[in-house]
Structures are given as structure tokens and as C-alpha cells.
């Protein structure tokens, strides 16, 4: 096949992401959608949108790899899957080929993955059972504040007197938020406090190495979180061009290199 394409499908609990790459690993097309209740249907729709962006059809797809929570639900395109930790590592190392610590803040979970300069994982951590520090936490807090999610980033930026939330737990944090509303605190200060809490929860998970990369939907939509994190860590944080697609791109790279699925 001339100019074959490789697909990575990252079917997360909250969002489905698809990346289309060529033989050189260049991103040719991509799409993101809410995962919804039919993972297979959502993935198929995302795939077609991403291919359209690449100006191609499914006939040019040579191999695909899936990852994420719904990774086994896409047999229409592939039965080969990799863990989201592996794909995330691969995608971020592709963007930053050096020794890095990846912090990924997703809709349902957080991950910290440490990679050596060759991209080999030396350790990884996933958050524990609760939603603290994840996108789900932000969504819950936005609904408590009756705010659309997209407004949080700008609001947090406007804060000049951040409110501190002390609790781990989403339910307790919600109570703290209500308490602050009652005391007449400004919404922007509360939102910044919520961002701060997300970063704290993630930084508690593991120690960091020198170069830190952030990825995931939460940082893609809230770049201010990255700025705050950099300030808290005390050094700059790297961000791939498409932070939300890191896992999908990683899966597509695995697809490109996975000769066991068949040659062109």
C-alpha cells in the first residue's frame, strides 16, 4: 500500500480520541467526542471524522491499536490493544524524546509515568479509587457553581485571592465550596482554589523528575492549570501540541510499529 495510515483510538471513560498518523509519525487527522454509552459507535464516528480530516478513507488504514477504558469495544477496526499508560508514554515521548515525567489528568483518572531517555517506562502510578484531582471532580464543582466547564479557565485567571480547599474528598470539597459561597467569596477565587486542589492531588501521587510534561483533556481545556502547576513545581512544564491526543497518538505509533498485525 502506498502512503498507508495508522490509527490510534483512545476510548476513555469520558472522551473518545482518535489520531491518524502516516509512516513518518506525522499527525494527519484527529477527532474527539464524548464517549457516551455506545463506545463502538462513538469510536467509528470519530474515526471517520479523523480520516476525513486526513483526506482519506478506511481503505488506506493499514493498522490500528486501541487503548483506554473501552479498548476492547472496537473490533470493527482492531483487536490489538495496549494500556493507556503505555500509549500515553509513547505519545509524550514522541513529542519530547528525552527523560520525562508525564502527568496526565483525564476525565476519570490521573496518571504519572516516568520515562528514561529511550522512552522506557521506569514507573507509573494511577490515582486510587476516588475522583479527587480528575476531570470528574472539575465537572462536579462546575455544576455546584452553576458554571459551564469552559468558563473555569478564564475565571481562575481573574482570581486575586485564591480560596484554599483542604479536603481530599469530592463530597467534602463540594461542602467547602458551598461554605465559601455562603461567606461571599468571589467565584473566580473559588475556581482557582479548585484548580489548585486538582494539582495538589496529582502532585501527591509521586515524586517528579527534572522534565515534566502534562497531558490529558483537563490541561488541554484549562491551560491555566499548567501555568499554576509550573509555578508550584518551580520549573517550566512542557505541553505537547495536542495534550488530549497524547494517548491516541501513542496508540497510532504502536500501530505503525506493530508488524505482527501484518505488513503492507
Amino acid at each position: 500500500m502506498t502512503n498507508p495510515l495508522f490509527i490510534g483510538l483512545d476510548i476513555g471513560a469520558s472522551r473518545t480520541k482518535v489520531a491518524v498518523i502516516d509512516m513518518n509519525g506525522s499527525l494527519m487527522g484527529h477527532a474527539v467526542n464524548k464517549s457516551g454509552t455506545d463506545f463502538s459507535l462513538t469510536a467509528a464516528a470519530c474515526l471517520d471524522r479523523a480520516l476525513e480530516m486526513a483526506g482519506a478513507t478506511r481503505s488506506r488504514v493499514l493498522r490500528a491499536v486501541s487503548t483506554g477504558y473501552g479498548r476492547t469495544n472496537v473490533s470493527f477496526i482492531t483487536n490489538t490493544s495496549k494500556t493507556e499508560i503505555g500509549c500515553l508514554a509513547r505519545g509524550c515521548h514522541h513529542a519530547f524524546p528525552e527523560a520525562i515525567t508525564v502527568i496526565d489528568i483525564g476525565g476519570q483518572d490521573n496518571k504519572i509515568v516516568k520515562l528514561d531517555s529511550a522512552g522506557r517506562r521506569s514507573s507509573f502510578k494511577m490515582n486510587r479509587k476516588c475522583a479527587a484531582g480528575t476531570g470528574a471532580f472539575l465537572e462536579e464543582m462546575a455544576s455546584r457553581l452553576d458554571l459551564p466547564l469552559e468558563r473555569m479557565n478564564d475565571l481562575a485567571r481573574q482570581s486575586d485571592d485564591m480560596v484554599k480547599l483542604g479536603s481530599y474528598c469530592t463530597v467534602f470539597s463540594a461542602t467547602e465550596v458551598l461554605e465559601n459561597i455562603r461567606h461571599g467569596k468571589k467565584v473566580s477565587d473559588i475556581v482557582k482554589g479548585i484548580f489548585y486542589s486538582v494539582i495538589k492531588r496529582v502532585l501527591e501521587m509521586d515524586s517528579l523528575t527534572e522534565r515534566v510534561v502534562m497531558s490529558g483533556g483537563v490541561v488541554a481545556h484549562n491551560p491555566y492549570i499548567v501555568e499554576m502547576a509550573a509555578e508550584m513545581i518551580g520549573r517550566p512544564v512542557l505541553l505537547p501540541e495536542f495534550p488530549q491526543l497524547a494517548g491516541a497518538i501513542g496508540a497510532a505509533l504502536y500501530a505503525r510499529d506493530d508488524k505482527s498485525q501484518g505488513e503492507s
Partner: protein
Amino acid sequence: MADESKTGRKKIQATDTMNRLMADYFYGLNEAAKSGRQKVAWCTSVGPAELLRAMGFAVHFPENHAALLGATRMSTDLIPAANAIGYSPDICSYLTADVGAHLTGITPLAKAYPGIEAVPRPDVLVYNTNQCRDVQDWFAWYARELNVPCIGISSPKNIGAVTDAHIDDVARQMEALIPTLEEIAGARLDMDRLRETVSLSRECTELWKRVLETATVTPAPLTFFDGTIHMGPAVVLRGTREAIDYYTVLLAELEERIAEGAGAVDGEQYRVYWDGMPVWGRLRQHSELFAGLGANVVASTYCSSWIFPAFDGNDPIRSMAKAYLELFIVRSDSYKEQYIQEMLRKFRIDGIIYHDAKTCPCNSNSRYGLPQRLETKTGIPNLVISGDLNDLRCVSDEQTKTNVEAFIELIEEGK
């Protein structure tokens, strides 16, 4: 057994023999409690079972019962009954499952063994806090509920070297149990019988050790998950001839497997060490998960905890005191670190999994930096998984699966 071969796991033939042995044990206990011909003592799993057996008690182990509740996945529905009377969801889920079962009038024994209706009623409850305080609180609940005497040993904890002072203390506490036990048993302790029982326990323990050490060979002829089942006799029948006979049979089968080069997991590629409790309600899933990835969990702290090298028939009480103090769970973190490091060497381990069990802090060894220290020393990667022994409300199957798969990928990358 079709499933087992599908995921590349092999059945141990001696299992049927063990099942018969365990059935005889439970029927014997039931008969003792019903007929009153033999007094019944309840004992903690690393309590002074030899003393009780030598004094003629039929011995029931509530932890064994609680593990059955877990393995049959009955526990998660029963735990709330204990929570509701003030026993927190954060404390030992063996305790809460077992108390919940009592409150609800349910036992897995009734289902497995027709004719048995209930757990054998105790005449005395005997604990040793060498493992945790929860066992004492657990037995204290039954003491109030059933109006039965509850006696035991308060053991030192977190010790490095086991010293004479520790042994003197525990031996004296054991001796102090004897008058009460004699009164309940209605007979004097026969020292010769105690010597013999301790000697039998020693023999049992040596065989169990050899059974576990067959897994030092590659491919290993058994898995941690097999071990959690086959350790039954080492727990509930130590001090009896039957346990020794059983492990002789099991050992022969495993040695035969080694001679044939037959591993418990087809195409064993990765050798994993498990620290902490098993997730009883997920034994099968976990066993399939690892086997499906070409990984064998070849060794564990848990199964190895029923190896008691100190037992000595010539000095029964002091050697029991020593044996029950030398246990991993009683020891300091620096001892634990050395112990695991030695296991990693002996079993040629590629990666360690620490099970952080929500309700069992004493068996969750990842909470004071031990994994990080050991990884720095040995370079062997580790993974901590959050879960629980019996309360499946604390277990996330999806997270466990992703974590384990990613861990095996990591090991593979590093090979």
C-alpha cells in the same frame, strides 16, 4: 476445568485429596460441637493452635471461615450488617464479614458440606495479637455474643531481632493460658502430647516450605493463587499427621511437574512476587489475568507466612513463642525489606506487586516507603494496587487490570 486450560493454567491433581481432607476436618468440627464429645476452641490463624490441639480441643479458625466468605463472594453483602452495629467499614473485613455472617445466620460451610448448618459453637476463644489487634476485637465480640471465655496473648509488634526477652514474655503468656484451658477441657495438659504436636507442626511446616520452593524453578509448577488454596491444611491442620501426609502427596506431584518441565502457567515469561493479602473474591480473575499475560506470581509473603522454622518438639512452649514471634507480620520494616529482598533473589523475580488492602493495614506493606526503598536497592520495579481482601466495594477491577497489564508491559520493556 476447561477454563483453566483455556487461559494456560494447569490444575493440581492433589486438589481432590485436599478437598476431602478439608471436608473431613469441617465434618469433624461439626460433630465435636454437636455431640459435645470434644471441646471446641476458636483460634487465630497464627495463634497457639498446637497447645489447643494437644489439649484435645477441636480447633476452628475464624480467619479461614472469613476467607471462605470472601472466596465465595458472600462477604460484601454481609459486611454491612457488622457496619450497622458499629464495626466500621475501615476495620478488618475478615472481622466484619464473619460477624456479619453470624448476625445474618449464614455460613458457606452449609452450602459446601451438606449436613453442616452452622459454624461450630466455641467453648473458648484464643487469640494472639501477633498479627493485629483486630483479631482480639473480633473474638471479644463473640465472647460477649456467645458468653464464652476469651483469652489470649498480647504480642510485641514491629520488632527487628526476636530476643530472649520477647520470647520469655510470650512463653509466659502461653503458660498462663494453660490453667484456664485445662479447666475448660476438663483434663491436664499432657506435655508429651504437646511435644508430639509441635513436632508434627514442624514437619508440616518443612513440607509446606518445600512445596512453595518448588516455584524457584523456571517454569514454576505452582502459582500464588494455587498456594492460597493449598495452604488450607497448613493453617487449620498443622500439628496433625493428615496435613503432613497431604503435603507429601502435593510435593510429589509438583516435583513430577518439574521433572516434566511443566509450568503452572503456559509459556511463563515473567516472574512476579505478591506482597499482602489475596483478594479472595477475585482469585480466579487474577489468576487468569496473570496467566493471560504470560506472567506467574511465583512467590508471596502471604503463603510463606505459614513457615515456622522455630518449632521444636524438645522445647515446645518456648519454640512456639519464638515461631509465632518470628513471623513477617510481627517484624519491623527493615526486617521486612531484607526478607523480601531475599525472596526476590531466591525466586528470581522480575517485578513486585504490593496489594494495599484497605481494611488490613498490617498486611499492607506499601505505606511506609518500603517499595521505593527496595526498588532503589534492587532495581526491580514495583506496582501498588489498591483493593481489599474481602470487601469488594474497595476493589476496582478495571483499575487493577489496567495497572497489572501496564506493569507487565513495563517489565517487558526493561528486559
